[in-house]
């Protein structure tokens, strides 16, 4: 049986993650694992003491104090996490998902997600986490780390979700984009869903071999696809295109370039996720 890993935290994205998971789980006939990670803030950093004086029994005292801080915070975080997981489970169950597995872990958020995705076929996360929720027009720092480290398809939920009825594929000559096409053609997620191929480039792109190859893969399916080609930067062309399609999901290959290049020039992928107001499915 297929499995979906739905990652939630205290942000408002938890609901859209659930709704998107419901959509995907029903189409893939998958079971769902809902994950919440308890990440306590560092007790060492939480103490405000720069006195640097160490006196009698300092090691024992310090250990006890740090344990106390962590303990209090962990208990609260665990309780909060339990409520979140409970809400998510109830939401999924109401929508008719039968197999739900709750997972509550301690640790680093990114590392835990990567650890758990090994058993999953699809990872669903929110566009921003609780820490950067208020900053709109950005992408959560953890999301980029998750997508860069992940080897599974990652579905990123936007704040508001409509049931996806259109798959917009951002197509270029890269192998990652070809993967995205393969995925859409093969996955039960997109059976019977309208596909739009969007290319940022000259009109002559339709004659290039990668386009022909991609089109031929999708041509046989129903309903057949719409092609949109405009010259310009990918983030602008694709961004403009999906802006008016609130019921779309954007599918694309992710992070074709090395982290070093990204550091210098910025990442197209990050820019597209930031621009899109719809869910984004990333494939590596």
């Amino acid at each position, binding site marked *: 049986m297929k499995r979906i890993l739905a990652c939630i935290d205290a942000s408002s994205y938890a609901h859209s993650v659930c709704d998107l998971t419901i959509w995907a789980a029903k189409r893939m006939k998958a079971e769902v694992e809902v994950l919440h990670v308890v990440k306590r803030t560092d007790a*060492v950093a939480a103490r405000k003491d720069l006195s640097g*004086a*160490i006196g009698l029994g300092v090691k024992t005292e310090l250990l006890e104090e740090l344990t106390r801080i962590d303990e209090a915070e962990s208990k609260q975080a665990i309780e909060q996490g339990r409520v979140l997981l409970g809400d998510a489970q109830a939401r999924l169950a109401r929508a008719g998902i039968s197999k739900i597995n709750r997972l509550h872990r301690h640790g680093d958020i990114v590392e835990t997600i990567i650890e758990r995705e090994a058993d999953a076929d699809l990872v669903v996360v929110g566009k921003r986490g609780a820490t950067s929720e208020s900053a709109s027009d950005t992408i959560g720092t953890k999301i980029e780390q998750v997508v860069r480290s992940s080897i599974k398809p990652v579905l990123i939920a936007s704040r508001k979700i409509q049931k996806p009825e259109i798959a917009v594929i951002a197509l270029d000559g890269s192998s990652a984009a070809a993967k995205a096409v393969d995925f859409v053609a093969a996955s039960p997620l997109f059976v019977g869903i309208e596909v739009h191929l969007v290319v940022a480039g000259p009109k002559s792109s339709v004659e290039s071999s990668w386009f022909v190859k991609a089109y031929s893969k999708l041509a046989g399916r129903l309903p057949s696809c719409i092609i949109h080609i405009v010259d310009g930067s990918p983030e602008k062309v694709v961004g403009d295109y999906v802006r008016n399609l609130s019921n779309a999901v954007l599918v694309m290959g992710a992070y074709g370039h090395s982290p070093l290049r990204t550091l210098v020039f910025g990442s197209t992928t990050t820019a597209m996720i930031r621009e899109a107001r719809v869910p984004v499915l990333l494939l590596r």
Partner: protein
Amino acid sequence: MLSTTALRREWLSNLRGDILAGIVVALALIPEAIGFSIIAGVDPKVGLYASFSIAVITALVGGRPGMISAATAAIAVLVVPLIRDHGVEYLFAATILMGILQIAAGFLRLDLLMQYVSTSVVTGFVNALAILIFVAQLPQLIDVTWITYAMVAGGLAIIYLFPRLTKAVPSPLVAIIVLTVISIYGGLKVNTVGDMGHLPTALPYFFIPDVPFTFETLKIIFPFSLTMAIVGLLESLMTAHIVDDLTDTPSNKRRECKGQGIANFITGFFGGMGGCAMIGQSVINVKSGGSTRLSTFVAGSFLLFLIVVLGPLVSQIPMPSLVAVMIMVSIGTFSWKSIAEIRTNPWQSSVVMIATVVVVVWTHDLAQGVLAGVILSGLFFAGKVRDMFTVTSRLSRDGATRTYRFSGQVFFASTERFAEAFDFREVVDHVIIDASDAHFWDISAIASLDHAIHKFRREGASVEVVGLNKPSATMVDRFASHDKAEEGQNS
């Protein structure tokens, strides 16, 4: 890709806390580096360069983020005879060799030997170290005027009382500054850092130690390098353990061994003495909010900045203020809980702890103290297991068969009791040795089993050994001289 996540966590997860803690620690490194350079008999710059270089390198390659390593008391007290007899160049050579030995220890996984070091030995080590640090301050307190005592007392008062006022500034720093200002403007006659030797005015540079590359040299430095390497690793691994506990995060002990080695190896070429992790300063680091590699790195770099840029000021610092800081480090390192626990812990544990302390204070060599502690705890353990041994015997109704039933551990320490259990003078036809609940551990045990069987045979009784468990039966098969193999298997 995961490594970027780990790198970020190990360096950048706690920027503010780490930078502030690093600065606090840098200030606490100065007294130990200067003080113990003087004790080792070299210029303060040897210790200061070493502290900079070791801190920065272990920050990069060590296995325990947030731990502070630098030139330490533990190593300094070991090298006094080397410097006295052969000069400082031999110290650099010994430091390089120490590094090589530690790297080798990392590859050979010698960190696993720490499993044999019991809690009592660790406590003894820590207490002995605190005593060494304290005792090293005494020369500064002998044959001096009352002004020195007043300054030390004043320094300690500031260190411990100032945090009640504010915890936003390091109180040892406040103590050093206040005492320095008083001594300069008051024109007080006390020793200053400048009186103790030259402070560096330039950055450290690379050079090959000026020693003959002969077997003779190796013979001189090897014993020192070996002890330095062992003591360095012991203190580093123990400190790593303390930091693990405090921060509730794991560390890579093997990488720490290699990291210490690399740090010492390179430090030797830059004119520094050997070093290792520091318990007191690592606790100060965690207490001040430092927990990643960044804080160690900042500590090292800031130290270099202090000594190179503020050198003229540093040389005017009165020694009594540094003595006060070192007394604080000594107090913070000492495990005061262990004093209260001497009476409540099992007496064997207390003996091991005290023996470790006594041997270290006697020899000024932490390695010998730990060795004594480990041997003692091994002996005590053997003694305890030896007591887990009982024997019952039963005579059959016809008086012809005697069954000895053993349970517990038969090994070198309990063979005597094993042998004493038999009554060879009793006249019986048949002897059954029932070992169902016993375990024969070593060839001493097998030898005494052999001995008993032969002796019974000479008294005319047939002997049968039953119920040997598998490992014991294998031992008997391989090492016993009596022809009991088949019967051992039959049972």
